[in-house]
Each structure stands twice: as structure tokens, then as C-alpha cells.
């Protein structure tokens, strides 16, 4: 995945889309004030400089699907593990809630179900049937919309072809009005994501920690 910080407007449509797609509970104001808001994808907002010369920076942060993920090695039950496709999977049924993965994650993108999930009405009427709801006591996080990946794989296989570039998008990328989020196959040198990845503007978040994240952020250039 590539995220273009230059075109990101910080509108947070991706956050809403992620909530809707993945049946993420709404914490409510009291719990959010306790620091228990749950957003698999959040748009971090940083100010640079002092008013009136202040500059606002947005950075959408989600699970970086690390290749050397610290969350995976510390999980005692393999609830957090690496799939053959290179995804960081979280098996909710296997999670016993040690929360060690969340402490080990440098990006703080793993979330804990402090209570059984609740939704503000009428959100309880719009669950996505392809995504399981998580019970109290388990960790959850961005899956790169694994249900969409699986669906695209099944479709492509039934039509005896490869998945086309751009055919498959996670909810955040699909929703982004500025097309700042691009998802695709890095192994395909022709794909849009590969070209952006190697454009020279790319940087990885907290690369020095050594988790080998799989999301590249394109550096901001415009001074707007």
C-alpha cells in the first residue's frame, strides 16, 4: 500500500469507511475520553511551526502489515501470525487477550475490546456480513480488508485469470476522494503501487525500529 501525504486532505472518509466495512464498534464519548476509541485507521494530525506560519500535516496510520512484525513473535497463542500471502493476520478466536502484541506494536494500531462491542443506533443495522464481530477480551486491527482480498481471489480464480491492478481495493482506498491511498501488488512492476513505491518520494514510518512495514508514505512536497 502507498499513501500519498501530498494529496491527503485529512477528511477522514477512510476512517468512516473502515468502520462501516469492518464492523468496528463505536466506543461512545465516555469511553473515547478514557482513551478507548477504536479506529483501525486513524488520521494523525501534526502542526508544524507557530501561527500564523503554521502548517498542518496529516498522516493516515493503520496496521503497517510488517514483514518482521513485533506483534507476531510475542503472541503466546499464534493469534497474531503471518499468512503465506504476507499479511499480518489476527485470529480473534485464538486470542486470549494478553495485549502483549499491542504493547510491542511501534505504531499503536492494535485495539483491545475492553467490553463487548456496541454500536450507536442505527449503525447496528448495517453490519457487513463478511466480517466477524469481535467479543470482549480480544485484540483486533486492520486486516487490509482481507475479506475483499479473498473475494477477489475467488472471483479471479473462477474466471481463470490473475487479479487485475486496481480491481481490488480496501475500503479506505476505495473511499478516499483524493485517491491518496493506493493498494496493489508490489510484485507486479507495472502496477500503480509499484511505480509510486519506487518514485523516490517514498518513506516508511518508523523504519528505524526495524519492523519492515509494508506501507510507503509519499513525502509531502506542496507548501499549501
Amino acid at each position: 500500500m502507498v499513501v500519498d501525504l501530498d494529496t491527503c486532505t485529512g477528511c477522514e472518509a477512510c476512517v468512516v469507511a473502515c468502520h462501516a466495512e469492518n464492523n468496528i464498534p463505536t466506543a461512545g464519548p465516555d469511553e473515547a475520553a478514557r482513551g478507548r476509541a477504536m479506529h483501525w485507521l486513524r488520521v494523525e494530525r501534526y502542526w508544524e511551526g507557530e501561527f500564523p506560519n503554521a502548517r498542518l500535516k496529516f498522516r493516515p496510520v493503520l496496521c503497517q502489515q510488517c514483514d518482521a512484525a513485533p506483534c507476531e513473535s510475542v503472541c503466546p497463542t499464534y493469534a497474531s501470525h503471518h499468512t503465506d500471502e504476507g499479511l499480518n493476520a489476527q485470529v480473534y478466536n485464538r486470542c486470549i487477550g494478553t495485549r502483549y502484541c499491542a504493547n510491542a506494536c511501534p505504531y499503536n494500531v492494535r485495539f483491545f475490546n475492553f467490553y463487548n462491542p456496541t454500536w450507536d443506533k442505527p449503525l447496528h443495522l448495517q453490519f457487513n456480513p463478511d466480517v466477524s464481530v469481535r467479543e470482549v477480551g480480544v485484540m483486533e486491527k486492520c486486516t487490509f480488508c482481507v475479506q475483499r482480498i479473498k473475494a477477489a481471489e475467488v472471483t479471479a480464480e473462477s474466471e481463470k485469470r490473475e487479479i487485475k491492478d486496481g480491481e481490488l481495493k480496501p475500503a479506505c482506498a476505495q473511499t478516499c476522494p483524493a485517491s491518496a491511498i493506493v493498494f496493489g501488488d508490489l510484485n507486479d512492476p507495472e502496477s500503480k503501487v509499484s511505480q509510486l513505491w519506487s518514485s523516490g518520494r517514498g518513506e516508511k514510518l518508523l523504519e528505524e525500529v526495524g519492523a519492515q512495514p509494508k506501507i510507503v508514505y509519499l513525502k509531502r512536497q506542496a507548501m499549501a
Partner: protein
Amino acid sequence: MSEYADTLTADLLRPILQTSWRFWTLAFLLACVVALGVGAFAYQVDRGIGVWGLNNPVFWAFDITNFVFWIGISHAGTLISAILRLVNAEWRRPVTRCAEVITVFALMIGAMFPIVHLGRPWLFFWLTPYPSERLIWPNFRSPLVWDFFAISTYLTGSSLFLYLPTIPDFALVRDKTTGVRRRVYSILALGWTGTTKQWHRLESAMQIMAIAIVPVAVSVHTIVSFDFSMAPVPTWHSTIFGPYFVAGAIFSGIAALIIAMAGLRKFLHLEKYLHPVHFENLGKLLLMMSLLWGYFVFAERLTTWYGNEGSEMTVFWQTQRLSYAPLFWTMVTVNFIVPVFILSFKRLRTIAGCVTASFGVVVGMWLERFLIIVPAISHKYLAYSWGHYRPRTPEILLLIATFGAMVMFYVLFSKIVPIISIWEMKIGQHPQLAHEPRSADEKATMWRTEP
């Protein structure tokens, strides 16, 4: 000799053979405190971990602090008693058993927290390598699984280490009691009759355990420290954590031992057996560990500060000057400044002085564990996701209940088992043999001097 042995036996068996209403009141009050903790846990299981003050990103706080703290306290007994036995320090005799008991109970309390803190505690057995029908094993790369093995080894080892030297005393109680008690104690005594052969076996078993338990104890707290040092979290990911945790554990363990001994001395009237010199010796040990602890904190802080790495410095200033500074400087005061001051002067190294210093150390070491865990995860890397932590009632109740449980177990144990090893005291009092290792033959004779 025989007269002395009589008073000794009578004094040390009195708590077992006589029970006053004061004991029952105390036991009831302590059970109430423990019940509060059990209630808090039941409430948490019913509602979810949300009843605690944890949040994103502070996923561990009181729970893991209690875990590390109590495992630390458990280093009092076994380690101290094993070392004192190995060097054959004479003054150890009345001290060893009350130290070994601390180990077993503190371990039991500490080892509960990895289960209590789970989001779904009813599935704790997934941490163990049990033969599951789906052939799923625990993840052996996870330090939490290492913890499981380390703690279960230590608990088994220290229980044996406590049990072995108790066998002759169980036999003594068996011979002094009647009825149900006699039957229970004769099971516990494992058919001990005090033959030369039995003394031989007991001696070699204790020797083996004393040698084996030292590396186990050191490794246990090193592995507990790995829970932190293996994770890429600023100030956790440090090579000093192994020895730092072990030193802290022994430090807090000695403090707990001093407090326990002072309590026993006062409430069981053991002034004749627990002398000021025992407190003075342990006070000296505590002083040495306080200096060692101060050195470790200094080394850890200095290397972080000198390295000046951005994310580490964020956590560093949080503890040094910002939100956690009051706790940090309290810790330095009660763990280092006060104990070093009190224990450096012979005039202050009295029982009261040692106990005062020890209470400070227990509080300080709890704070130390807390300050290692919480500031680091609440100020980890991306500033946008920083958070703060404030405990809520259920976790405070749990903390109080752990202390209640420790005292309760201790009080009940001293009702059932002679808290000072009677046979070891007798051997220590033998005029000719007091200062040299004794053969099993001689031990057998001495034990038999008691009718």
C-alpha cells in the same frame, strides 16, 4: 541441652497447638480483604477489562506491575536461604523457613496475574503446551510462554525446597498430636523416623535443591524481564534488564523477609529466637542491595540520557521531570536515600530501623515496576497516540487483596507448620558441633535426644 530442647520445642510448637480468638479474628479480616479482590476479579470477568483504567495505548499497568513485583518478592526466600545454607552461615537457622515460605506464596500470588490480566482468562490454558485435539502448540517465540515454563519450574523447585527441611518437623508435630491432626501430619511426614539413612537422603536432597534453585531463581526474574526487553518499546529494549530485575527482586525480597520476621517475632513472641543480630545481618544485606539497585538505576538512566535517542528521551523525561517525576523521585527516596541512610549507621540498624527501611523498599520496588511499564507504553513513538493512565477501583482492590492474601497465607501457614525449623535450631545449639558441618550420624543422634 535437653532442657533447652524442651523449651525450644514448646515455644515453636505453641502457635500450632494453641489457637486464640485473636488468630481467628485476624484470619477472618484477612479473608475479607482477599474476598474483595476475588470480587473485583469476578466483576472484571463479567464486564471486561474495561472496568480497569487501562486504555489505548496503556495496555498493561497494575496487573503486570503486580506480577513482576510479587515474583520479585518471591526471590527473598529461596535464594537467600539457599545461599546461606550453601555457605553454612550459622545465623541462618531461624531465618530460612520463614524466607522459603515467602517464596512459595509470593510466587503463587504473582503467577496468578498473567491469568488475571487476560482479556479472556477462562482460556488461560492456551498458554500451556497441552495435547490439544487441533494440535496447536503455544508460540515458543513468545516471552510469555517462557514465563510459563520459568515460573512453573521455580514454583515446583521452591515448594520442594520448602517441603524437604520441614519433614522432620512434621514428624515432631505428628508425635505431639492426636486424632485427625496426627493422621494429617503423619502423611506430611512421609514416614519419617529419623534413621541415619533418612538423614543422609534428606541432606543430599537439600544440598541438590540448594544448588539447583539458585540458577533457577536468577533465570526466572531474567525471563520476567524479557517480557519487556524483547519488545521494541523505548526504554524497554535494554540489555541491562536481566540483572537489573534480578537485583531488584532480591532487594524487595529481603525487605519482605525483614517485615515478615518482625511480625512473627512480635505476634508469636519469638524474641528468644529471632535476635536483633538477625535483623542487623539482613539489614546489611539490604544496604548492599540498595546500593546495587542505585547503581543499576544510575547506569540505566545514564546510558539512555547519553545515547540521546529521540523516542527513548521522550520516555526518559516523562519519568525524570514530567508526569511520572513525582513517582520516580519518591521511588529514589524510599529505595535508595532512606535505606542507605538508615542502614549505614549501626545505631539506626535496629529492628525498628530495618523494618522502616523495608517498608520503604517494598513501596519503592512496586513503584519501580510501575515506572518501567507505564511511562514507556504511554509515550511510545508516534506522539499522536500517546496516552495517560489512571487506576480505577477494581485494580486498586486487586492490589490491596494481593497483600491481604500474602499475609493471610503466611498467618495460616504459621498455624500449621513450625515457622522456625525446630530440628535445625536444635542442631545449631549443640555445644560442640555448632560451628562445623555435621555428619548425618551425629544429626540422627541429636534429633533423637528429643523424647
